[in-house]
């Protein structure tokens, strides 16, 4: 696939615009996944996918053949998502209300049984988790998503975020601390 991608890139750079469609079709699902996990909603994720592939096309001459096109466009997508999540409007939208009091956030964790009450509780847990994720800074969230959900190495995360590996590790650690603190009420009732 890698060699094939490289030949497609060469074709695109030689003037064959249509060849880029092959790359978009091959990698759009993976790009959407990471975009959704960082952005947290479909609409933003789809815009991030478009933006990532557009930026990749515009910078295609700078694409180094050492890495795969998939990895490269993935990194561009993470950066696009990071910029989007870091926008003040979006951050403010997620940070509605001050719910720092653990007492007000205490909920019960759903068990494996699928009775309606527990399904409802499960949804509440997901909502609380999502809310806690949105409280993270853009960098913390991005670092945590890449490490915890996408299972990327610290080196890769550092490269994507453009920071030193130790800084990337600290970003993940801060995110974990905040999430554990935010979700502690849920654990307390588990």
């Amino acid at each position, binding site marked *: 696939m890698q060699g094939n991608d490289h030949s497609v890139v060469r074709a695109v750079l030689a003037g064959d*615009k249509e060849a880029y469609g092959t790359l978009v079709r091959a990698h759009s699902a993976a790009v959407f*996944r990471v975009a959704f996990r960082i952005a947290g909603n479909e609409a933003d994720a789809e815009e991030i996918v478009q933006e990532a592939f557009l930026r990749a096309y515009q910078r295609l001459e700078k694409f180094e053949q050492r890495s795969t096109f998939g990895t490269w466009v993935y990194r561009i997508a993470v950066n696009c998502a990071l910029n989007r999540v870091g926008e003040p409007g979006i951050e403010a939208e997620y940070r509605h209300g001050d719910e720092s009091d653990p007492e007000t956030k205490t909920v019960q964790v759903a068990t494996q049984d699928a009775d309606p009450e527990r399904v409802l509780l499960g949804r509440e847990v997901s909502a609380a988790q999502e809310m806690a994720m949105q409280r993270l800074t853009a960098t913390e969230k991005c670092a945590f998503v890449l490490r915890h959900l996408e299972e990327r190495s610290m080196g890769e995360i550092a490269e994507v975020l453009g920071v030193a590996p130790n800084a990337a590790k600290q970003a993940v650690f801060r995110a974990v601390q905040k999430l554990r603190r935010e979700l502690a009420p849920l654990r307390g009732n588990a």
Partner: protein
Amino acid sequence: MKHLSEEEQLDIYYEEGSDAAKAHLKGCRECSSEYAKFKRSLDAITPEAVPQRGPEYGDFVWQALRPQLIPYEKKAAGWRGWSWWKTATAAAACLALVTAAFIGGRYWEQRKSQPEVAGIAQPQQRVVVVVLTDHLDRTERLLVQLNHAGPGDRAENAQLQSEARELLASNRLYRVSASKEGDPALAGALDRLERVLVEVANDPQLTTADLDRVRQDMNTSGILFEVRVLLARKPNQESGPESAKGVKI
């Protein structure tokens, strides 16, 4: 005993912990309990279900993206991608280059051939020098014989006369050449020598009295001295533009 920090627990969770931290975790009940809680809390953070995108999603993205893309300019694919006028220009340039190289080569060859001619002339001149030296040697011997010729030896006088006749022709040639080459010293000496040779060669009965007259009238001792000076003269010490011994004939 120092227990594991939260950061160390995180490292172990993501399988990046040090061996020492892992060993401590195994041996420390308190840390094991703490780590179990830590692990549970992180395990609980499950990835949110990503909305499924079917195989047509790629097409959807591409169709939305396609109008925004400007094709890259085609790069020239070698000489086949050249237009006819570019090819013609390149061919003309090549032709001009080859022509210039040919003319330049010819000119260079001509320039180079001149020193070669001089190089050929050098050994030729060396031959002339040897021949003239030989002539002067023979002339010197003849003058010495003439200066020391005893009375009444007719056979010796006849040999002297024969030698003078042989030298006369070549001496005339050398004299004319020396005059042409602008070497007055050599030309003058050869001229005086020629007169002596003429007298000796053309005398019908060369007697001792005749030889004495020649010796006195023509100062053969002086001519002998001149000949010896000429023989001693090195090719680069000539008075004229070229060596006296290396005069062209």
